[in-house]
């Protein structure tokens, strides 16, 4: 087995006693090994030289056409690309205005507040979600993420908080950040602890099954699934069952396969809505039992009309199933809005 082989090899890899002691000394307030500091100086010098060369060569071209080459430049040298990006703290497209409210560095975290306001309708609401349509370009290595921080109903304005940290102690004040958004979802509905009115004692064996090529999966026993079931066995999708009353998510099958309960849902055009959810069982005491694993597959990827199927699998013997009730939590979005919004702004030290 690969896992055992790999573990055996890894067991022989560990930090030396000297290295571990050096780090422990640092924790006690001592210095790290001197060679490390020397290394840092060498790296800084090389990096500075490289940056100067890049700036010299790139400046004439950049001055002429900043925007078209920005993406390419950012791939090659984020620092240079961001240096030349002009500051633009607001952006408007498709009747939606994006604006930077503040961009300050507090302690070791940079916090940036950006608003998005619908100037013409009510596409922005308190459930607005940028999903994976945004990017945060910055000229230094760091971790960054963006989340909805608040919503103001009277002005139809959503505020997002961008947090950047882990930049290695460099001075980043004055460095410019570019935040881009290509679309958002809104008008989401949440269904929590939704009881599915289905008699579990009547669940049959699947009459027909199919082997599918999965495009995702999860659950507490997913590792076993990945190890031994590279191509899982799934239900054949049936017509939507009316026991699931969630707009956008269809229940297309529930049956036993090889002694395990399979529950299947279908979501049309998933890239346009990000509908999602999961099922769980509850016993008579209200204790929740999650599925053992889940996997997903699609009817096709290339053409319009994509349907993603999600199959949730419970390793529950049929004779015990009558002791449980089926529940689910789901989130659906009612609207997707596309556009191109981009702001560039410098970070400032908070006084």
């Amino acid at each position, binding site marked *: *087995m*690969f*896992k055992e*082989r*790999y*573990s*055996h*090899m*890894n067991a*022989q*890899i*560990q*930090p*030396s006693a000297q*290295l*571990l002691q*050096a*780090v*422990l000394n*640092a*924790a*006690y307030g001592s210095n*790290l*090994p001197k060679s*490390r500091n020397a*290394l840092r100086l*060498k*790296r800084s010098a*090389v*990096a500075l030289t*490289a940056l100067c060369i890049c700036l010299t060569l790139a400046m004439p071209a950049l001055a002429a056409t900043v925007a078209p080459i920005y993406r390419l430049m950012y791939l090659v040298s984020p620092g240079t690309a961001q240096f030349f990006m002009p500051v633009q703290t607001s952006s408007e497209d498709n009747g939606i205005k994006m604006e930077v409210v503040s961009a300050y560095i507090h302690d*070791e975290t940079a916090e940036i507040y950006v608003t998005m306001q619908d100037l013409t309708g009510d596409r922005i609401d308190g459930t607005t979600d940028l999903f*994976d349509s945004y990017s945060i370009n910055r000229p230094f*290595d760091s*971790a960054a*993420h963006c989340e909805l921080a608040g919503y103001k109903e009277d002005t139809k304005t959503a505020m997002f908080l961008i947090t950047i940290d*882990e930049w*290695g*102690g460099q001075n980043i004040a004055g460095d410019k950040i570019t935040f881009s958004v290509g679309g958002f979802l809104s008008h989401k509905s949440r269904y929590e602890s939704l009881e599915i009115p289905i008699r579990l004692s009547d669940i049959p064996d699947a009459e027909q099954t199919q082997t599918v090529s*999965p*495009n*995702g*999966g*999860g*659950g*507490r026993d*997913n*590792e076993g699934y*990945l190890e031994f079931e590279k191509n899982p066995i799934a239900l054949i999708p049936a017509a939507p069952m009316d026991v699931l009353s969630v707009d956008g998510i269809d229940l297309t099958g529930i049956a036993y396969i090889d002694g395990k309960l399979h529950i299947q849902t279908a979501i049309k055009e998933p890239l346009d809505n990000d509908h999602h959810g999961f099922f769980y069982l509850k016993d008579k005491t209200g204790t929740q039992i999650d599925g053992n694993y889940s996997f997903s597959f699609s009817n096709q990827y290339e053409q319009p009309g994509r349907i993603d199927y999600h199959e949730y699998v419970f390793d529950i013997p049929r004779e015990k199933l009558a002791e449980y009730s089926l529940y689910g939590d789901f989130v659906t979005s009612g609207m997707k809005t596309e556009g191109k919004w981009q702001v560039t702004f410098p970070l400032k030290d908070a006084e």
Partner: protein
Amino acid sequence: MKPQSLRGEDCAEEVIRVYSNLVYRLAFARTGTTYDADEIFQEVFLRYIKKRPVFENEDHRKAWFIKVTVNCSKKLWGSAWKRKTVPLAENLVFETKEDTDLYNELQKLPPKYREVIHLFYYEDLSTEEIARVLERKSATVRTQLTRARVLLKNLLKEEYDV
């Protein structure tokens, strides 16, 4: 409620000892050399000592160490210093020929594949947990894992049940 650290400031030694192998082995998995793993090991714990982040629980602490180790590995890999230096020959000696062969075959994989293989098979993270900690889509992680396994199977001539 503000999250509380599970360990006080005086327990940094314990935290370092607990997570030392995790950080070192992940760094080694990604970079393939003990020299780079040494460098990343120091960088990760230096950040921990300087920042003293607060975690809600040990899972979050583990995720932090994994994320920072991967970020530091990427930073080292992409640095101007790294690109302009010739790597030292690795002098790590494994116990068995099988270990050495496996190490050599793993080095033929791209670092991002080795990283996913390590987190899945050694740290026992699910693909969704890997996706969260690496800030990738779970479908991407799953694809990378599948491709890595296919490559490994080819490289090892189906010697191992990957």
